[in-house]
């Protein structure tokens, strides 16, 4: 029956097209999708976009404020430059101050040379998106200022995005899968499975998170590398995050089981998996999307809490949470408020993920 298969194709295509159309009409979601994509691009090319080696400490660069770029030269031609800086610690106030060294300007160049790295871990190169002429970038370029150890904030942010947007998300995905799966099983099968899962959730949720973290983190072997420790800590955080979702999913499953369209689908002989993913999951997609867009910041914030417990993460595992935690002190607030800029990408990414989620939900909406 070639006629019908052709027909089906049209139907399927149009269904997909439908979702795409619906998604496209959600302008903010579209923009968000681009932002998320841009962040992942940045993470992918982190070393290229960073212009200074993010771990390079130098006391002579401690707490440099964000540096302005001079876009045009005296003749009004486009010629971006930055001023070299002269730093000095006031012997009475002990404050560092930096003044532009008037004679010393540096040209900003695209694709300049900087520290060496391997692109995608393979190709050795020292080309960076931004550079300065006749100097190393870390001696002249501080777009977002530097931290106490004289490390460039911009470059660190860029490199941290890599960790936060990959390993950080693993935890979110883990708790999502656990939550939907266990909640679903609990709601679908009921009986003793339900009772057991419910008790486990109840126990996990009655214990405050801090002892759980401390207990589990102490079990991490001494010999592990910082990245491994980071990964495990992320898993630990997610291990506790799934319970809320599981309970909600269970509740929804219980309620939905009774509804007409599920009964209809059952009568029609649809398989259970098909019912779950085709019918049940979409119907509480909003909740899942809300839960995910909430889990992401929670994950990043949790990292900042860890340092309180003496479980802080150290380089090379730098993440946004680690950078944010570095900014949590009085001297930052008073002397180097620009370090708080770290919160910005976190907010932007969270918002973008959230709007993207909204857009996808609307697009796939069964009621739309």
């Amino acid at each position, binding site marked *: 029956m070639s006629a019908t298969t052709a027909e089906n194709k049209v139907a399927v295509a149009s269904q997909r097209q439908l979702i795409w159309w619906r998604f496209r009409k959600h302008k903010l979601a579209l923009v968000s999708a681009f932002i998320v994509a841009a962040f992942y691009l940045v993470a992918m090319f982190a070393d290229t976009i960073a212009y200074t080696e993010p771990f390079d400490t130098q006391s002579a660069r401690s707490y440099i404020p964000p540096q302005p770029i001079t876009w045009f030269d005296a003749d009004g031609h486009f010629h971006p430059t930055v001023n070299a800086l002269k730093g000095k610690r006031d012997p009475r106030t002990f404050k560092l101050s930096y003044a532009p060294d008037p004679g010393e300007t540096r040209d900003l160049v695209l694709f300049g040379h900087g520290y060496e790295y391997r692109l995608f871990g393979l190709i050795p190169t020292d080309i960076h998106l931004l550079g300065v002429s006749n100097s190393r970038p870390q001696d002249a370029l501080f777009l977002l200022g530097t931290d106490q150890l004289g490390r460039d904030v911009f470059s660190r942010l860029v490199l941290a995005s890599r960790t936060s947007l990959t390993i950080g998300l693993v935890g979110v995905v883990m708790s999502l899968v656990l939550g939907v799966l266990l909640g679903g099983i609990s709601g679908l099968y009921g009986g003793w499975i339900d009772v057991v899962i419910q008790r486990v959730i109840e126990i996990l949720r009655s214990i405050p998170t801090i002892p759980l973290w401390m207990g589990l983190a102490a079990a991490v072997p001494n010999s592990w590398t910082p990245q491994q420790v980071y990964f495990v800590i992320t898993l630990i955080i997610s291990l506790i995050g799934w319970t809320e979702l599981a309970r909600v999913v269970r509740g929804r499953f219980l309620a939905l089981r009774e509804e007409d369209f599920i009964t209809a689908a059952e009568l029609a002989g649809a398989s259970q998996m098909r019912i779950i993913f085709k019918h049940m999951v979409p119907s509480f997609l909003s909740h899942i999307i809300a839960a995910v867009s909430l889990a992401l910041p929670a994950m990043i*914030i949790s990292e900042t809490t860890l340092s309180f417990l003496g479980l802080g993460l150290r380089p090379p595992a730098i993440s946004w949470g680690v950078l944010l935690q570095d900014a949590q002190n009085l001297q930052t607030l008073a002397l180097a408020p620009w370090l708080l800029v770290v919160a910005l990408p976190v907010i932007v990414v969270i918002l973008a993920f959230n709007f993207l989620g909204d857009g996808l939900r609307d697009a796939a909406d069964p009621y739309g």
Partner: protein
Amino acid sequence: MLAYLVRRVGLAVITIWAITIVTFIILQLPPGDFVDAYVAQASAMGTAISAGEAAALRHAYGLDQSVWVQYYKWMAHIVHGEFGQSFEYGRPVTEVIGDRLWLTILLSIGAIIVTWGLALPIGIYSAVRQYSIGDYIFTFIGFVGLAVPNFLLALIIMYVGLRVFNVSVGGLFSSEFQLAPWSWAKVWDLAGHLPVPMLILALAGTAQLVRIMRANLLDELRRPYVVTARARGLSERRVIMKYPVRAALNPFASTIGYLLPYTVSGSVIISVVLSLPTVGPLLLHSLISQDMLLGSTIILMLGVLTVFGTLLSDLLLMWIDPRIRLGQLK
């Protein structure tokens, strides 16, 4: 109904018992014991405790016994309505916790009320006016609240309070009431100190609740019963408040039980920063110093409150959700 209650209370008791075991195991996970922590702390202060003394202390505090013996002794205490002795404070655990538990509950309930009071209306507004300017503004503020760690927020508030308003934020009592016995003046003083920590504590929770309320309500608003209610001639306001909001609120009833440990977990760091006399810092401290009985008692108390909170919220759910009440849903 009665059978159900009996069954649930039975389950609750079993759950609490399981919590005691899990608690004990978790607190035993980190290496070392209280005496180790104690020796480490003493070292940091420049005091040497010899190995022999450490052994004597271990014996005096029964830490040389196996975990299960310690557990058994603790349970024996609990059965008698006691909770044993805090190693670090040298006083019965109940005395150490003292007023802190009630202040914690007070602060948490206050924070929960603030959270709900802010989140539900905003959530309803955001759902009904989805994609309006207002919705976007609330979304933005909410996520900013989520992305700024509580610690930083509290610190900023305190710093601004000092630099700009020249007030010292923190604590739950003014210095003149710190040591005073309870009186109306002290209660009034407490009331004056509660809003700032409550607000900080509520902020992250509010953003979360707004998102969930908005999502739930969006799902409900799409349902046909809303159309039929409209077709009956109800005003828009009444349509929304009576039907979808009612349905969207339903899942929240089931979370009431968990709010307390959740808020307490969230309050640990805020309490530390703002020097609030709640159980949060005590818990953190007992964990760091491995003060087993103090730590496990606090966790147990929260656990009991949670389990009964859950029981209550299930009963509440039963009461407000006819589908459950009439046995439609298990």
